[in-house]
């Protein structure tokens, strides 16, 4: 094999990158024909190509490592104690997903209805809603009763309860794992 680091410092990396793409077969058709031409005419490209091709062939033909003779037996013994878990899809309850989606959509729609309900839709002398739209003052909408302390506190409370519930789940899983190991 020739010296791996080529002599030309400029563009060496670029040549290699283009040649690797050519060897890997990921160059475009146009690029392939350019490289084929260069390989015929340019000695530096030819030498670099030979060098990279040899590395590539060595990598392809390098040997696989084998685990111990008992490897397969060990795996089969281990899996005999296990059950295949049901597919993730099957144990995610679709009703919960739909319920959550419904809850959020209902919240958004509820706020919109409430907001629009507070607007003054009465037509002015010219009688068009489109002209009235410009006069609507969104600052007048009053959502304060939804964000009162009671609502915020209730929301925080639900979050804390959910957090404790998840924490309990996490620790019980850890406890089970620990018992299994013991």
């Amino acid at each position, binding site marked *: *094999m020739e010296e*791996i*680091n080529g002599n030309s410092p400029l563009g060496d*990396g670029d040549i*290699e*990158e283009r040649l*690797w*793409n050519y060897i*890997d077969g*990921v160059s475009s058709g146009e690029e392939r024909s350019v490289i084929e031409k260069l390989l015929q005419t340019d000695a530096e490209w030819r030498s670099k190509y030979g060098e990279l091709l*040899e*590395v*590539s062939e*060595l*990598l*392809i*033909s*390098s*040997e*696989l*490592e*084998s*685990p*111990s003779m008992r*490897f*397969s037996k*060990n*795996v*089969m013994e*281990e*899996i*005999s104690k*296990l059950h*295949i*878990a*049901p*597919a*993730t899809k*099957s144990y995610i309850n679709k009703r919960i997903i739909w319920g959550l989606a419904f809850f959020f959509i209902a919240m958004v729609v509820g706020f919109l209805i409430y907001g629009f309900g507070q607007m003054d839709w009465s037509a002015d002398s010219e009688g068009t809603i489109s002209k009235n739209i410009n006069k609507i003052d969104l600052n007048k909408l009053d959502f304060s009763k939804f964000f009162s302390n009671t609502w915020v506190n209730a929301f925080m409370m639900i979050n804390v309860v959910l957090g404790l519930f998840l924490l309990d789940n996490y620790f019980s899983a850890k406890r089970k794992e620990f018992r299994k190991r013991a």
Partner: protein
Amino acid sequence: MSTGLNDNEIISQVLAGDHQAYAGLVNRYQNYVFTLTLRIVKNREDAEEVAQDVFIKAYKYLADFRGASKFTTWLYTIVNNTCISFLRKKKLEIHSLDNEKVFEAADNQDSGMRANLVEQKSKLAMVTNAISMLNPDDAAIITLFYKAEQSLEEIAEVLSIEANTAKVRLYRARTRLKEKMETHFAAEVKDL
């Protein structure tokens, strides 16, 4: 025994309750999985433990394999994730591209093999040893591309990166491999 069947047929058998059919997949891919884990974790005992863990996880979650990709791509994703978890547990630095400690560790672990290599004067052994000196990320991408027959798109899926990033990483890994060959196996490289 399910040796004549393709991967998906074996998986169907296993999911239908024939657990012994899984041995067909283990026998078919144990060398690939073991080679990949060995090149990432750099130690035979650890690699065997991790490879075993990979097959157990793959069995446990086999119902989640929906055939959207090749079975091997799904399996190597488990290999990659299991190796990363293992290395994290062992507190090894896996992301540094020029982590000399990893190289040194690989060097030391490999010194016995290198003595053997001088006797064998084998090109293939030289490449294998040079790969073992690479950092885990580089060794993994080279092994996935050359030994595990994964395309750049499939490697991207295994490593959870973009295909273009996989291409760049493969190029850099090969460049570093060549450097390793030159630095550590200069005599053998000249003989080639």
